[in-house]
């Protein structure tokens, strides 16, 4: 568990092991996959150190696309090349997709039962709160400057209040954010 894997970037993780590991991550990943991915990859399997995992997840966050999906592309590639990438993606997605379709079919039969509908909506309302709370927590934890808060506020207002389309908003915000960050560095 204590090996410095950055010194030996290709520890031998077999294809089946990789696939089964990510299958488990997908199956356990209630309410967000990232904490489970870390638990299994770092603590249970010891494939990566905590620091390596954090770095890879960080890169996954910078790139577009789901963070953990991006991280699994990087991890799969590292241990087994392009085949590893496919195994990690398939392992992670296979069971959740089957489960979600199964739930949707069950729900269709039971939708007329008021309790079932109420429970589903109650859980969804909580998920919405979870996203809101996580966003606020992350904003607090990065100790934002005025410029950072301005960008956050602008992004929030454009999408949530004015309901502008995402693509031009993201492009505009990225340009503004880079300019703002450069200005803060210079001053």
């Amino acid at each position: 568990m204590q090996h410095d894997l950055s010194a030996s970037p290709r520890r031998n993780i077999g294809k089946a092991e990789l696939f089964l590991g990510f299958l488990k991550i997908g199956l356990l990943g209630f309410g967000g996959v990232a904490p489970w991915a870390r638990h299994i990859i770092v603590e249970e399997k010891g494939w990566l150190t905590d620091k390596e995992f954090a770095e890879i997840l960080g890169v996954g966050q910078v790139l577009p696309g789901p963070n953990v999906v991006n991280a699994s592309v990087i991890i799969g590639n590292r241990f087994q090349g392009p085949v590893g990438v496919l195994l990690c993606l398939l392992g992670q997605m296979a069971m959740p997709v089957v489960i979600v379709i199964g739930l949707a079919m069950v729900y269709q039969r039971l939708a007329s039962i008021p309790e079932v509908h109420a429970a589903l909506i109650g859980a969804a309302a909580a998920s919405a709160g979870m996203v809101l709370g996580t966003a606020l927590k992350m904003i607090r934890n990065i100790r934002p400057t005025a410029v950072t808060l301005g960008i956050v506020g602008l992004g929030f207002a454009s999408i949530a209040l004015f309901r502008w389309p995402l693509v031009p908003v993201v492009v505009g915000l990225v340009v503004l954010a880079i300019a703002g960050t450069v200005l803060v560095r210079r001053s």
Partner: protein
Amino acid sequence: MNGVLVDLARTFAALSLVSIGGINALLPEIHRQVVAVHGWMTDTAFANAFAIANASPGPNVILVSLIGWEVAGLAGLLVATLAILIPSCTLAYFASHAIMRWSDRPAVVLLRDALVPVALGLMLASGVSMMRTVDRDIVTVVISLATAAFVYTTKRNPLWALASGAIVNVAALHLS
């Protein structure tokens, strides 16, 4: 049918490359495309799909798989899932080498710092947009806000809040 599949592919492939901050940040735009632009689902059906995807384990990109399934069956599921994954995964595949190798370069550090508030602003907007989608009465608004407070102030497993939300909403049904 083929027209729908092409539209699904085009819509989600385009969204894939702008989904900085993940699927949660993308949610308002997915809602806009699916309900308003293409009219694939009603507002209520979208809210249900969102709730079902959240009740399932796994990456929340499975919401897109479920939308594909509801719109065009198994073919729709495959097309939507591949469309949302392939562009961003391809980019991740090629970009990761460069970013990992040059992670200390000033330009990469700058980009990383600049993208953080963009992602957070989008995620915040997403939380509010999700509440608008799902919360139809005072009880659900309270559940959302209470969960937000729970997540903000504690490190406990959010699964507790999700379960409590379901129980509280069922209880409210019987009390009203």
